[in-house]
């Protein structure tokens, strides 16, 4: 069997937790393949991988000094790690990753290459797939199998549909996996796997030079601390209506005003209010989404809320699949009616 290869996500010399999710997904793929071979449960929907099963998976950790990172991965997962020492690598750039992984991976000849669907993974995975002449399926949120093999689903059309894709048989496939979907499986492994060290020096790659990583102060403490978040999206139509949403929020104690990304992009309100992958990840007792359709990046930032209420004109908006209560109608009229009844 060809191995499943995972590219660990390293930022500022730290392994990002999404790496554990990639490992969980690799175990799921192996379990689904096994079930296919045994002819049992071809649907494989409810399969759970055996946590000790680390065979057939390999993690590549690219860094200037990858040994400590490699040890951490193998001691917490039991999986074999290839420590890819890229001499002089200060920080990630797509050029260096594609060049070095593009040289290394054909030697390993994997069946799958798993990358996180993060700002970093999205930056290099498509180019790497082209370099390797591999199939490429980004933003995967579901893996299952039918009689012909594995199928991957991913959201399309503003999250209102999922597209189910099968890689051409025999093709190596690069998958970028949506964070927060595949449950992480890190802990402490009984038997650590092996570590192989590989050194690569890159001469090219000078067209892109990393300078620094800037940290923007998020100022999202109010959102993080709130028990109730009332969040506004494009459905509120005008900037002036934020005032109404704010009044609605104040009906709840310990509440805060959140917004979806487009409202920050258009300059209606500051970044400190933005909920989602590129803003704040929140998990309040109650999340009220007002005129928010529910992009994947927004949903990922609020899905751990205890209760979710959506107020939206469109009952087919993606948020409705991820809300407990969907109030169908004009958000502004509803809030006016609610405020009057208080």
């Amino acid at each position: 069997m060809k191995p499943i290869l995972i590219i660990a996500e390293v930022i500022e010399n730290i392994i990002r937790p999404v790496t554990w999710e990639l490992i969980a997904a690799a175990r799921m793929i192996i379990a689904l393949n096994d079930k296919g071979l045994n002819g049992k449960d071809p649907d494989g929907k409810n399969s759970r991988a055996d946590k000790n099963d680390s065979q057939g998976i390999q993690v590549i950790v690219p860094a200037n000094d990858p040994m400590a990172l490699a040890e951490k991965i193998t001691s917490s997962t039991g999986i074999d790690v290839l420590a890819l020492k890229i001499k002089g690598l200060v920080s990630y750039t797509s050029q260096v990753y594609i060049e070095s992984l593009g040289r290394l991976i054909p030697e390993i000849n994997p069946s799958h290459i798993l990358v996180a669907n993060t700002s970093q993974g999205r930056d290099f995975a498509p180019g790497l797939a082209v370099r390797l002449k591999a199939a490429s399926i980004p933003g995967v949120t579901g893996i299952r199998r039918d009689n012909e093999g594995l199928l991957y689903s991913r959201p399309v059309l503003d999250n209102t549909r999922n597209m189910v894709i099968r890689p051409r048989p025999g093709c190596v496939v690069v998958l970028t996996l949506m964070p927060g979907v595949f449950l992480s499986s890190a802990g402490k492994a009984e038997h650590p796997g092996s570590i192989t060290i590989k050194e690569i020096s890159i001469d090219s790659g000078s067209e892109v030079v990393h300078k620094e990583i800037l940290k923007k102060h998020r100022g999202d403490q109010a959102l993080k601390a709130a028990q109730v978040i009332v969040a506004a999206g494009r459905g509120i139509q005008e900037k002036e209506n934020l005032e109404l949403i704010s009044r609605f929020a104040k009906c709840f104690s310990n509440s805060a005003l959140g917004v979806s990304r487009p409202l920050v992009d258009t300059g209606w309100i500051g970044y400190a209010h933005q909920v989602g992958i590129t803003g704040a990840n929140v998990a309040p007792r109650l999340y009220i989404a007002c005129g928010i359709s529910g992009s994947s990046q927004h949903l990922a930032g609020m899905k751990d809320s205890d209760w979710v209420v959506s107020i939206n004109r469109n009952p087919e908006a993606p948020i409705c699949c991820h809300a407990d209560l969907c109030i169908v109608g004009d958000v502004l009229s509803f809030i006016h009616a609610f405020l009057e009844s208080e």
Partner: protein
Amino acid sequence: MKILVCIKQGLDKEEISRFDEFALEEALGLKDKFLEAGLTDIRVDVITAGPTKATAVIKRAFGMGADRGIHIVPRDAGYSPAFVTASNLAAVAGNNSYDLILTGIMSQDMMEGQTGPMLAELLGLPCVTAVVKNIFNDNTGIMQVEREMENGLRDCLEICLPALLTIQAGINTPRYPSLSNMLAAGKKQIITLAEKDLFPAPVKAKELLVSVEYPEKTRAGQLIEGPLSDQVSQFKAFLREKDLK
């Protein structure tokens, strides 16, 4: 300076996909700066691949100030994997030595974010995705860019042109088409090319579309319709029941 902006139809087919509008505005903003500095050697081309109707987005781009438009007619209607689209774009862009190629971070319909980075790889260009800021130094030919990461981090890079950038939403405020540009747009010619001429042997897709489904629900999603007063009382009952207010 020659800039190519790759654009696509939005969910509303007459409009440019939201993310691509930001990319086009970046190009036009750069053109404005060149012209203000008295540098007239700058041109903004737009390219799109899609059915005949897709030329609507080229006309809209003309209205915003783009100079030339290229329309690629795909071999097959329907699902076109990013690699096939990128190959088409590369076949055209490769012969035109662009200094800068821009596109939106992803399309609104497919939401893949692959066409840009794949095109860069096919053309052998350096690529930076999710760009939220860029400053071009005309003397050095170096562009300082900031790439958006998670958790409020930004990766600051310097990139040597020619290069490809994918543009994140919110980097600028896309302009509306102007009347004078709209009037001039009628005279601008759209160059039409067919995939079957660019690639007599079809580009082989490595991904096969199996089906399109509705997403699974992760919560009850109880629909509350009906008169406002009922909706308000049901909402209040929900809050009481879950002890949320």
